[in-house]
């Protein structure tokens, strides 16, 4: 991907790019009369055309208020732009909040409890309706009223709780005041939240018109403001995105207007078939990585259009600090010493970067050395220190203790769970895996009555702020049901740091404190969690697509608005 950028930077490259863009635009204008609005993303390749891509399963929802999966967020990021958003670039730069539909970043006052923004002028939805400030209130009301998985993000807004309790969709959220004439939006929070700008940049906050019904609109997605508009949705079969007729005219900085005219996403259950079709150029992109079975073929035959990128995710084993034997720090240390991280990476067909940091790569506070060479339990790319683990288990006097290892039947989680159980057996436990259906797994282990001892857990970042990971081990977030703090980690020192850093809006200035927090969480003597790596996701496209132009965004993965035909 760097090759073309280097070329572009050179004089010859620039001249070539100008010629190619001119040619491409000329063709596009003559072919379909589209406007010459592609000023921001340049490069070789042609504008316009249609592509067909695939997903293995239907996105949970095609409604910004409801969707909370990669399947939904990846396509909808370029359909529904929130007030704040992220630049469409790779690396840490892609995780910096920028103004989206707002003119500027929010003005924060009142000790971090008040956010003021102003809507850009002249914005219109894809159906031509003008965008007004009160649409933001309606957007948040839909998230809360529809009991979206993302509603908890907005419950810190003053009056959000009352709005939910009243159950009246048209009710008022006291903490949001808007002025449609001036475009001003003011949000009052109950308590300061340093990650609130990131929350405003989530897909949940992608603006929809004020008359959008309070119901799941997956089959008829509402209009939005974005490079593309969803023009057709047949659940479990396909959905179609076409270039928005008016988005380019808004000229929003750092948000590309897209290249291809039409993107058809087909739902194809068989990942093998998808991979074969991309190899044969019958499909232009598959959202899931090619199946492990076909990976050698893909790497051999299509290495110039296949790549893997480490995502902002962490895979770890939780250890319930309220239940024996994991209430003993020595046992938790033993597990960290004894898990075979490179072995687990093989189960993921190499699509896992072994590591021992809880905060993922790209996250402020992430320390690459701690994650790799300086890991307190040894280099995660090397075999485990099983002898040390056995010794600690012996010292703790828990040899032969029965342990149930929880996991789910999603591939390859079941295999990871079985491997983990075997590793615990090698350390000296009497461990048995318990594999549940993926649909009920997290609710089951998140119920205190289950008393799940240890098992599989993972988290992909919703936004690049450590608070999006710290709640997984925050003592204040422990609940009786739907608990996400599976290990019931409740350490006064760690909790105090989280509470203090929640107030810090200048994230870079406290990155070192987050780094120390991460190390305190993972290192001995606490060893509260046993992280073992960060997931890699793939970019795999057909020969028709300009592979070098594709941006793999740190949050939204493959950016469809950078897909371009050669």
């Amino acid at each position, binding site marked *: 991907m760097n090759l073309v950028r280097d070329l572009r930077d050179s004089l010859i490259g620039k001249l070539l790019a100008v010629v190619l863009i001119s040619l491409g635009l000329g063709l596009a204008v003559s072919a379909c009369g589209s406007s010459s609005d592609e000023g921001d993303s340049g490069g070789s390749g042609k504008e316009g055309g249609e592509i067909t891509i695939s997903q293995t399963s239907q996105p949970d929802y095609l409604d910004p208020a409801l969707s909370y999966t990669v399947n939904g967020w990846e396509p909808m990021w370029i359909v529904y732009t929130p007030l704040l958003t992220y630049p469409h670039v790779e690396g840490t730069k892609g995780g910096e909040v920028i103004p989206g539909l707002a003119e500027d970043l929010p003005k924060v006052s009142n000790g971090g409890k008040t956010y003021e923004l102003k809507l850009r002028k002249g914005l219109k939805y894809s159906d031509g309706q003008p965008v007004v400030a009160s649409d933001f209130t309606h957007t948040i009301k839909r998230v809360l009223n529809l009991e979206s998985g993302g509603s908890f993000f907005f419950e810190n807004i003053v009056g959000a709780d009352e709005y939910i309790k009243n159950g009246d969709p048209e009710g008022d959220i006291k903490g949001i005041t808007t002025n449609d004439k001036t475009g001003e939006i003011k949000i009052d929070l109950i308590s300061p939240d340093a990650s609130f700008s990131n929350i405003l940049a989530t897909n949940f906050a992608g603006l929809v018109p004020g008359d959008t019904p309070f119901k799941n609109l997956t089959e008829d997605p509402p209009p939005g403001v974005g490079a593309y508009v969803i023009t057709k949705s047949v659940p479990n079969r396909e959905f179609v995105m076409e270039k928005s007729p008016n988005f380019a005219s808004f000229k929003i900085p750092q948000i590309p207007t897209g290249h291809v005219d039409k993107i058809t996403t087909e739902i194809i259950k068989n990942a093998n078939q998808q991979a074969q079709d991309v190899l044969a150029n019958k499909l232009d992109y598959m959202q899931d990585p090619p199946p492990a079975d*076909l990976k050698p073929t893909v790497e051999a035959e299509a290495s110039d259009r296949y790549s893997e990128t480490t995502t902002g995710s962490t895979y770890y084993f939780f250890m319930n600090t309220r239940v024996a034997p994991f209430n003993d720090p020595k046992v938790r240390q033993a597990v960290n010493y004894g898990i075979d991280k490179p072995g687990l990476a*093989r189960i993921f067909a190499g699509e896992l970067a072994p590591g021992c940091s809880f905060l993922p790569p790209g996250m402020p506070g992430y320390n690459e050395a701690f994650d790799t060479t300086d890991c307190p339990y040894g280099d995660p790319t090397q075999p485990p220190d099983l002898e040390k683990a056995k010794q600690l288990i012996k010292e703790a006097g828990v040899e032969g203790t029965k342990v149930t290892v929880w996991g789910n039947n999603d591939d390859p989680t079941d295999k990871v769970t*079985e491997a983990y159980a075997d590793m615990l057996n090698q350390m000296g436990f009497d461990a048995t895996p318990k594999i549940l259906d993926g649909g009920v797994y997290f609710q089951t282990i998140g119920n205190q009555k289950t008393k799940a001892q240890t098992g599989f857990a993972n988290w992909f970042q919703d936004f690049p702020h450590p608070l999006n990971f710290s709640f997984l081990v925050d003592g204040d977030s422990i609940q009786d049901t739907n608990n996400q703090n599976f290990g019931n980690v409740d350490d006064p020192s760690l909790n105090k740091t989280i509470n203090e850093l929640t107030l810090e809006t200048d994230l870079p200035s406290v990155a070192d404190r987050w780094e120390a927090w991460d190390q305190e969480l993972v290192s001995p003597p606490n060893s509260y969690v046993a992280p073992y790596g960060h997931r890699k996701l793939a970019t795999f496209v057909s020969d028709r697509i300009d592979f070098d132009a594709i941006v793999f965004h740190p949050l939204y993965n493959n950016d469809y608005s950078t897909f371009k035909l050669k």
Partner: protein
Amino acid sequence: MSGATDRPVSDLQEFSEPPAVTQEGVAGESPWRLAVRRMRKRRFALFMGAVFVLLVLTMAAAPLWAEHVAHTTPSANHLSDQIEVDGEKVNVVGLDGVPIGPTWQGQFFLGADTNGRDVAVRLLYGGRNSLIIGLGAALITLVLGLVTGLLAGYFRGWTDSILSRIMDVLWAFPVILLGIALGTSLALGGLKLGPVSVSGGSLAIPIFVIAIVYIPYLARPIRGEVLSLREKEFVEAARAQGMGSFRLITSEILPNVLSTGLVFFPLLVANAILLEAALSFLGAGVQPPEPSWGTMIDEGVARIVTAPALAIVPGMMIVLTVLSLNVFGEAIRDSLDPKAKVRIEH
């Protein structure tokens, strides 16, 4: 088409053979001896029976192979291990997740799976589990099916109505659906019947599930036979002599329906093994880390391109086991009861 032409030629010849004449006169032959004589003529069936016995012995030797030849256990992962093949160190599981193929030597004779487990060891232990489940489930079905059929057929009236309706309910569900429903719920929460408690991962769960779903397939024909038998003269005579119901059922009726039960048994075993494999394939049968041919196929399908042996070998074992049992079972049926038409249809 007449009934006689439906019978195999060998049977027709058998019926046409005159009884053996000895110096003492016409020698009578017991039904069991007659069955053995008929069985002897079925060479292929006997061969398949021998194949089945060989399979059983091989599976029984699983711990010996695991300990003395492969030096591992069925659930031991060897993800980061290396072994020597033809003088070269080779990863059991490659960095790209591709497991080693058959080495044709003690360790990883048939290769490894994605967790680096020895496929040959898991095949033997999986077969052992399949046979335990098949035989266990068939035995329970045999006992409960006989008891249900005998009680329903003998007592008729309310007893028959209640038992027959329960059988109807079980019969109403396709075997595989009922197996999935029972298997999934029991695998999650285990089984608690009064003081008896069985954990969800126990082999007793699939044994119980499979035994239950097949009961109607045996109970109904037994009931039909009992309804007919209870009207026969010898039963009337026994009753007239004051014989009680329990004794009458056990000493007069049961011996007459036992052969039907025995005819069903090998076919029940074969079907139970098939159902176990199907349920395990779908995640509702044998639970990890216990191996099963069904779960091995499930795991192997995902690697059909890079490691085809993972799915093909357990598949072939299922075919061989079920085929040998079916051929042998059919021969037993024809030998014991040439007039019977025993079928277990789903």
